[in-house]
């Protein structure tokens, strides 16, 4: 198994910590003038999403995690797994568990391309694109011309997610949503 020394640490590096795959979020070099050097590292556990802080002795090594990010198209769900297909023309498919799609579930749309993170060839997480366009399936009728008051109302999307939209938006419109904040951005062009 490959290892990384602390002097190779940088943001985005994938490592194994306590048996879990993690990505390095931040790496800070800490050294007393006359003493041991350390690397103060923030890591995100890719399984749980939790952020850990660890201080390593500089020069120590940790194992690399065989993790890679691939673009895949969302195909369908059978209720137990959510299926994604490689976009490289191989049509190869991967099934993601409920835990793996946790962050993307509200934003899943067929044929849309997602970042699928594989660990030892199994789906670890699915990350939605920053913006997706989704249909509104239920909201109060639009108030024509009301673009100035800044009022909002709830709207249910085709995925089941509920977002706040401006009052002028009508049922069955397609809107653009920021998946990082879960907020309405604009009407789809």
């Amino acid at each position, binding site marked *: 198994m490959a290892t990384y020394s602390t002097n190779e640490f940088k943001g985005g590096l994938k490592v194994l910590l306590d048996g879990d795959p993690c990505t390095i979020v931040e790496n800070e070099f800490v050294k007393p*003038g006359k*003493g041991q*050097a350390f690397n103060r590292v923030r890591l995100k556990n890719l399984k749980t999403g939790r952020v850990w802080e660890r201080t390593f002795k500089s020069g120590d090594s940790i194992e690399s995690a065989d993790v890679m990010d691939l673009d895949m198209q969302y195909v369908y769900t059978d209720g137990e797994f959510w299926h994604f297909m490689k976009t490289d023309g191989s049509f190869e498919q991967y099934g993601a568990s409920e835990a793996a799609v946790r962050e993307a579930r509200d934003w899943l749309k067929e044929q849309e391309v997602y970042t699928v993170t594989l660990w030892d060839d199994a789906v670890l997480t699915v990350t939605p694109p920053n913006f997706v366009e989704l249909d509104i399936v239920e909201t109060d009728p639009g108030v024509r011309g009301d673009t100035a008051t800044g009022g909002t109302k709830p709207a249910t999307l085709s995925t089941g997610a509920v977002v706040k939209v401006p009052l002028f938006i009508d049922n069955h419109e397609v809107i653009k949503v920021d998946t990082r904040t879960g907020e309405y951005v604009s009407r789809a062009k």
Partner: protein
Amino acid sequence: MSDTEAAESWRPAASWTMMRRRARMYADIRSFFAQRGMLEVDTPILSGAMNPDHQIESLSVNTSDMPRYLHTSPEFAMKRLLAAGSGPIWQLCRVFRKGESGRRHNPEFTMLEWYQPGYSEQDLMQEVADLIQQLHAQPVPVAFVAYRQAFRQYAGFDPLAGDLKVLRQATRERFDWSDEDREPMLDLWLAEVVEPALPHDSLTFIHDWPASKAALARIAPDPEDGQPIARRFELFWQGMELANGYYELTDAAEQAQRFEAEQRRRVRHRLHVAPLDRYLDQAMQAGLPETAGVALGVDRLLMALTGTRDIREVLAFPADRA
């Protein structure tokens, strides 16, 4: 680095306001030492010998005849001047440390170092505080705490007494690793637990270090229980280590032993081993006056004076633009 960043990297990283602030700080430092009638000195950056401290790595330079090392502090040369009868001296110079790079580190940085024969480390701590008060617009509160006391207060244990096994256990529980030796573990607790707990806006001098951290400081018994402690201090301000001072060791034989011990540690850690400084040894044998000395990181001082969090913002050209 993005293309736009790369295209702009010929430009200075520090603002002009910051560069003017640095120039003013240098002028204030010069006037502080001039007021005290101290001699400004200038010693070589390249030396045939290397600081043997195994926690500090020197950069080496290829010359036609023999390897030369960039100094990591002007300490050895300044002690030769003291032994030759210089009296109180000070120096502002560039020093170099291999592999030290980060938010508070640049491998090349500016050091202010001075020696006051006849001073104790307490006198010198006071003088360091006086200098900073003179450089800073508003008065800064000053606190003094013994290393032991700081550990008892903030880490909850006595760093000098106690079983190594207990320390290993506590370190493993808190940080998920431990070490054979006490030193790296104490450094870890200091950096991660004690330092962050120090009052951010006060100048805090931690004094009376464990004897194992004496480096070139005199060792004396702790009046509390006779444990050997180093007459050494470090200054912390705004979460940064700014200065390191000693009541200097003057015993040539003891210094030679400590250097030999460092050389053995370098061998054990598979680090580069270079000749020891024989001129320093000769100077010590000729006689170093009783003196206190301190080295202060001037880039970090400028960071603290201006409330800056990244050393890049106080350097015209940080290492990656040099």
